[in-house]
């Protein structure tokens, strides 16, 4: 079974530029998550989708971050414009559905973003 795929693995941009990350969850997984992991910290949830709908985006900085999940499969996370403090690893995860026992989250390899 293929895991969660993310691209790119690394991205370096100047502040005020835009950047987008892509995630392809495990086939059949209805729930998709984007986490931000700043160096030295644990991941923090940015947004959660259930199929195409947003379940929780309370910690997404909506003035600069946006995310979508078209057709309930792939998802993109965009930052526009980027700030220095956005330097982090962006992790995508998916789970079969909400609620145990199928709620285990499987993570992708992440995208390391450096903002100069």
């Amino acid at each position, binding site marked *: 079974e293929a*895991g969660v795929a993310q691209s790119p693995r690394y991205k370096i941009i100047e502040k005020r530029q835009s950047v987008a990350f892509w995630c392809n969850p495990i086939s059949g997984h209805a*729930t998709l*998550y984007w986490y931000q992991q700043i160096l*030295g*910290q*644990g*991941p*923090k*949830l940015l947004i*959660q989708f259930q199929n195409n709908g947003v*379940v*929780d985006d309370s910690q997404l900085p909506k003035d600069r971050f946006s995310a979508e999940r078209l057709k309930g499969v792939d998802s993109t996370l965009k930052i526009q414009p980027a700030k220095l403090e956005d330097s982090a*690893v962006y*992790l995508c*995860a998916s*789970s079969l559905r*909400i*609620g*145990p026992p199928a*709620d*285990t*989250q*499987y*993570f*992708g*390899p*992440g995208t*390391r973003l450096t903002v100069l």
Partner: protein
Amino acid sequence: AQTVTQSQPEMSVQEAETVTLSCTYDTSESDYYLFWYKQPPSRQMILVIRQEAYKQQNATENRFSVNFQKAAKSFSLKISDSQLGDAAMYFCAYKTFGNEKLTFGTGTRLTIIP
């Protein structure tokens, strides 16, 4: 708000020995789940073990076991017969029943000494 605390930024253990990683959490909920995730240098978070708060029996997965003390809000991970491949960052995480959001601690970096 729920918080997860890992007080050991770094730990090391000799290969084949046993090591215990500590985690405490703060919550007012009675139904919740606790997890240990491993993050090797590849950055991919891998689930090691999970514990449901309503279960009194401690979870075990091969060489990995937990000591879950609900009253003390403590959830430690014991790794037996440590192997070189166990070297990674270990994150403790919490999730409320009915809410899929995982709250992570700051992690413990585990080094295995050959």
